[in-house]
């Protein structure tokens, strides 16, 4: 795999995002595999923002540790990103507005280009972004014309003139660089895609939304919140065509109760949110559990606690996902590892919710949710709709009213078939109170026990995929462990360690509830020491493993909690710290 890291940075509101988008999409359309990461802040204008694009000749699942080309619209961009520049990196700064100074001595080419001045000549200062892309094209040794399709896509509805002036800005940037500088970072050779590979460009949030639609979801009730709102946008775009409804709720409490109501009525419905909203949903989560109503909740995690860092990533809602709400309910907590799994798990989340008649929480995060990347297609053919146990009209036909036992405790697997409102003879009351078989609240001791145990049985027979993946040498004495969005970077770390001669296995959770105890036990066989990598400050996954599996002494933690996604080299460094030399050199 060959790759190159490109980044553009400046103030929010300066057009950094669209510059990044255009470059990324252009590279993707050229056939490369890209991975993007947007660094932004919780204010609308001002504040440092940057957009990192990794361009590779094979699939990458991480934005990469390094930057080869940095476009800087201000000195802050130079300062903030200096540390990640590779030896010999090129920094292009907007000479029209400032004179860049290197923060430390380094082998970096600091090239001033009058981006804004050139832009002014072609249509206005905002065009400086296109000039910068032109400069990039020159550095990458690609023709400006390669960008034309994207530019047309983006601007043709504003008229040919706008397209032309954008192309002109791009060409001028290209020309200026060609004229003044000799250093280049050519893009890798174009990859040849295998037949049948669908080379797509998607974010985790989009994949989540698409997966929901594919999985039969036709009602989304949500309240806007970064970084989850994009799920709403995608759904808003496509639901009308497929007969779905989007509710912008007055708050997250309404949102989850709406999703529960719609599921009760027989639709597949969901809500999507992030930490603060998720915390508000705790009471209703219990209602879904107690009333045995399916519901799917997506939590696109961000840095907490409280309002925290709304535009930064973290994996710190694991505990709440597993333990939030008073009392005890059955729940399923999925932690998709990739964009493709966002799609697939969402489609399946509705099956699990209906099959086990309980809430399914899908824990994504800002990094996975908002990073766009090239993938080799969605697993469309793996989408199935399985509605679980719905009582057949025929089974109700013979019954007199209120004979139907919605909460029949005698079913061996604990899963009693659901009737849907409108179904003849299926009348019952769903409720959050303890209840008897027909849905009347009761407070007698025996019924209580029988119903608690009925509900508990539902997940004791849980069947899905194994919940963890194991990559690398099955006999390795040393393991990297993670969950969710860190899959890509852990795989890179494993590969890089292998080049150092360090053999590790990589155990990754794609589900934390029900906890995949047995598969973990097998995976941990022969492992002397494991590094649990997670983006939080207390090591929630490590605690969970300790609780379920013991292994207290084998586990060490690699934690990151500054809001930035973890880098490959940070993991490697931590490995060198915590693993005994003899293991590393085994």
């Amino acid at each position, binding site marked *: 795999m060959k790759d190159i890291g490109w980044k553009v940075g400046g103030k929010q509101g300066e057009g950094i995002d669209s510059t990044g988008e255009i470059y990324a999409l252009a590279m993707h359309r050229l056939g490369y595999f890209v991975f993007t990461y947007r660094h932004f802040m919780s204010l609308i204008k001002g504040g440092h923002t940057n957009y990192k694009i990794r361009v590779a000749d094979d699939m990458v699942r991480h934005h990469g540790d390094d930057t080869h080309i940095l476009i800087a619209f201000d000195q802050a961009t130079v300062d903030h990103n200096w540390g990640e520049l590779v030896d010999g990196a090129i920094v292009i700064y907007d000479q029209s507005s400032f004179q860049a100074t290197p923060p430390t001595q380094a082998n970096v080419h600091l090239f001033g280009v009058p981006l804004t001045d050139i832009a002014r000549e072609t249509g206005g200062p905002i065009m400086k972004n296109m000039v910068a892309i032109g400069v990039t094209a020159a550095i990458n040794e690609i023709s400006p014309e390669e960008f034309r399709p994207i530019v047309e896509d983006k601007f043709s509805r504003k008229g040919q003139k706008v397209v032309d002036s954008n192309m002109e800005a791009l060409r001028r940037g290209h020309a200026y660089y060609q004229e003044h500088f000799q250093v280049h970072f050519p893009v890798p050779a174009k990859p040849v895609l295998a037949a049948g590979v669908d080379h797509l460009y998607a974010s985790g949030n989009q994949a989540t939304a698409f997966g929901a639609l594919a999985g039969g979801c036709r009602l989304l009730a949500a309240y806007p919140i970064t970084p989850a709102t994009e799920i709403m946008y995608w759904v808003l775009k496509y639901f009308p065509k497929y*007969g779905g409804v989007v509710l912008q709720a007055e708050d997250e409490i309404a949102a989850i109760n709406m999703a529960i109501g719609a599921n009760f009525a027989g639709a597949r*419905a969901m809500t999507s949110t992030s930490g603060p909203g998720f915390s508000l949903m705790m009471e209703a989560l219990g209602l879904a559990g107690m009333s045995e109503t399916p519901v799917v909740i997506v939590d696109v995690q961000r840095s907490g606690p409280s309002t925290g860092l709304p535009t930064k990533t973290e994996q710190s809602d694991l505990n709440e996902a597993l333990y939030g709400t008073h009392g005890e309910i059955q729940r399923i907590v999925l932690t998709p590892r990739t964009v493709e799994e966002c799609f697939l798990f969402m489609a399946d989340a509705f099956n699990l919710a209906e099959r086990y008649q309980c809430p399914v929480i899908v824990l994504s995060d800002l990094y996975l949710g908002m990073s766009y990347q090239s993938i080799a297609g969605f697993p*469309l053919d793996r989408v199935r709709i399985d509605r679980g146990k719905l009582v057949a009209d025929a089974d109700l036909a013979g019954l007199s009213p209120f004979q139907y036992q919605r909460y029949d405790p005698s079913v061996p697997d604990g899963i009693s078939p659901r009737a849907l409102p409108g179904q003849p003879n299926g009348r019952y009351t769903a*409720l959050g109170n303890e209840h008897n078989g027909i849905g009347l609240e009761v407070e007698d001791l025996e019924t209580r026990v029988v119903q608690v145990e009925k509900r508990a049985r539902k997940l004791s027979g849980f069947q899905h995929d194994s919940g963890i993946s194991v990559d690398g040498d099955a006999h390795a004495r040393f393991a990297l462990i993670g969950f969710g969005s860190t899959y890509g970077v852990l795989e890179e770390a494993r590969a890089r360690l292998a080049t150092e001669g360090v053999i590790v296995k990589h155990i990754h959770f794609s589900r934390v509830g029900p906890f995949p105890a047995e598969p973990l036990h097998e995976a941990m066989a022969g492992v002397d020491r494991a590094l649990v990598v997670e983006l939080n400050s207390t090591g929630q996954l490590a605690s969970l493993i300790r609780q379920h599996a013991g292994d207290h002494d084998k586990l060490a933690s690699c934690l990151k909690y500054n809001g930035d996604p973890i880098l490959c080299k940070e993991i490697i460094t931590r490995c060198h710290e915590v693993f005994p030399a003899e293991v590393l050199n085994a």
Partner: protein
Amino acid sequence: MITIKDFKTEKATWCPGCGDFGVLNALQKAAVNLGIHPDDIVVVSGIGCSGKISQHFGGYGFHSLHGRSLPVAQAVKLANKDLTVIAAGGDGDGFGIGMGHFIHAMRRNVDITYVVMDNHIYGLTTGQASPTSDVGFNTKTSPYGTVEAPIHPIQLALAQECGFVAQGFSGNIKQLTQLIEKAIWHKGFSFVNVFSPCVTFNKVNTYDFYKQELVNLDEDDTYDPHDRSAALARVAGRESMVVGLIYEDTGRPSFEDATYGFPEEAIAKRDWSLSQADLAELSATFR
């Protein structure tokens, strides 16, 4: 033919004389009069004595959370537009913890009916002040008399341009039945506030009290329930101590009618699977 018998379940657990019996009765009668089959109606309630109505009504029910009947009910309707959906609950449930949902449900205008059993007290928790308790009312949580002004549900509904606003009384089941019928019939969100005495914990707002205090707008030929300003003035003047149809606006489209792409067929009745062709088409939007 559907008769009231089709709705009968086991005896309600309310205290003898509780106003909620009247509401239950009126609701069942309204359904019968409108020819609604009990399998096709859902009562979604919150928590409170009043909340037990979903178990007692005899249709499908959802006894949800304290204050959350409206979000649940709205979604039930949107998921299956062929159902008749009633949200119901107490004054604490709807105007205390549930106030935000109440105001927003009026904005949203989903075609459901909301019936509040307003007894000016928290019944199930054995007698605390409720948001509609009058100033100076003595309860377990207001031993020196409540100091907060009561919520004015009718005025709020009018202020928020709710399309159907009525008020009834458990002591007049006939009128209440008619009001609920009209409310169900109304397209869009309809609101029926009911004075439903709690005979155990509220010794002030009793049947007798209401019989004396209430003015019946339905018997007033000069009253025009289509003039919002007039309604506001009338209601503000009488401190909302009126019963009858207070306001109806038949012109406002429901959420379902106003929403672009709202499915013709009830969502819950559709087959949701997408063909591989559809999936491929969607997938192609990611190129």
